């Protein structure tokens, strides 16, 4: 009985090690699929923050990455054959699947799907606000200060019009 438990444990460790090494090999390959890890990101015509915007991609969208250099990834615009550039830091090789909508999509109500997509964090925030009596209003105010990269680069370069 005890020996079988040891064997089971050894088995578990071997499989764990095997699968993680496989995952490591997969992530080492540069071209492939990556997942958008920011709420929203622009795909631009050239690797520059002031290049024209071709498309927007949202959180958890999978994109095909052809190459990456100097913090930029050359990607295929989803649903199109066109290529563009986006920040490499907006992408991850990890699969973002926690409490995702896909998991809840079978046989649950639309409310539950909505909850699964984004709502759990929201629900926790609401619950935390109420129980800990924390005021988020100034956090919301500060998040409203948002400038385009074009404005920011102009401002840093001393453009008085910005």
């Amino acid at each position, binding site marked *: 009985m005890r020996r*079988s*438990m040891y*064997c*089971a444990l*050894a*088995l*578990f460790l*071997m*499989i*764990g090690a*095997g*699968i993680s090494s496989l995952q490591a090999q997969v992530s080492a390959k540069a071209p492939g699929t990556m997942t958008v*890890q*920011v*709420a929203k990101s622009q795909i631009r015509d050239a690797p*520059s923050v*002031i*290049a024209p915007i071709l498309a927007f991609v949202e959180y958890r969208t999978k994109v095909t990455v052809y190459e990456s250099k*100097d*913090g930029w990834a050359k990607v295929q615009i989803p649903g199109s054959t066109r290529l563009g550039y*986006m*920040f490499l*830091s907006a992408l*991850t090789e990890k699969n*973002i699947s*926690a*409490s995702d909508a896909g*998991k*809840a999509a079978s046989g*649950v109500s639309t409310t*539950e799907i909505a*909850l*699964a997509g984004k*709502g*759990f*964090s929201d*629900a*926790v*925030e609401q*619950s*935390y606000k109420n*129980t*800990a009596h*924390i*005021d988020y209003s*100034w*956090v919301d*105010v*500060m*998040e409203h*200060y*948002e*400038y385009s990269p074009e*404005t920011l*680069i102009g*401002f*840093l*370069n*001393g453009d008085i019009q*910005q």
Partner: protein
Amino acid sequence: MKRKIPSPAFFFLLAMGTIVFASLTSCLTLSESMDMLASQAVSQGLLDRYQAVMLKTAAKAAVEASRSLTPEEEYYVGRAVAANILSNYPPYNRPELNAYINKIGQGLALYSSRPAIFMGYHFMVLDSEEINAFASPGGHILVTRGLLRKVRSEDELAAVLAHEIAHVALGHGLASVQGARVTQIAAEFAIDAGKATGGEVAAFTSSFGDSISELAKILILSGYSQTYEFQADLEARRIIAAAGYDPNALASLIGRLPSRDEKGGAGFAVTHPDPSSRIGALNAQPLEPGKGHAARKVWPIPRQEKQNERAVDPVLASFIRVDRFTAIKAYF
């Protein structure tokens, strides 16, 4: 009753077989592989049902323990931490000043190692005499008026903001909370939201609140580790240089900050290493050549844009920076 135990070699072959199978089907998770394996083992009489359940539970725990926060969860943690700090320090509601520091800060973030984060970087001034600054893991950066008053130029202000941006970009916030606590909230965040009950949300809120308090306490009372502070200084100097500011501005500002032993040395003085050791660490590792102004090539201007580009005159730019800093300083 004695059951025949297969040799370890058999287990090894079975494990290898499962790995090959998992790699062929490509999307099996460790937990799913273990489920499948455990069921097979039971049907072949290798394990009894109790052992199979134990194996599955262990696999699930291992998966949850290895799960880190998703970028979205990190952002929500950051919001909560920022809300906590803003309940300890009143905000300084001067839209002109907050717009100014957001333009500089968000501009600097473009030159950081992580220009894109979940909802971007946001900045706000706190109405406090204490010399202090905070960065939440979600990119919320708070700077006190006390610290602003120590700043003598836009370059030094950029250095302050870049230091905080560096903490966010390098992921220092969550790395400072005890590993177990992050693992716990990461695992609980993973509750299938479609099936989460009110009770589960309430239970999670409680451990979420504990983690937030711990993180806020680290930021307000103890600060990051010395290693993280030195890392943030080096990254801040690289960022400001790349953005066209004076890389020496960081050391000159640090030189005017109070040390731990000085009177009134709360806030920054307690949560940061001694100014002399920070300057020493910066001097020990000079800015690499090519990391200064030339780093602008990281954001090359595409050919078609170049025709419309107005040439940047560094002398004129520095005059404009001096002018606008002098004007905004009245709010500090």
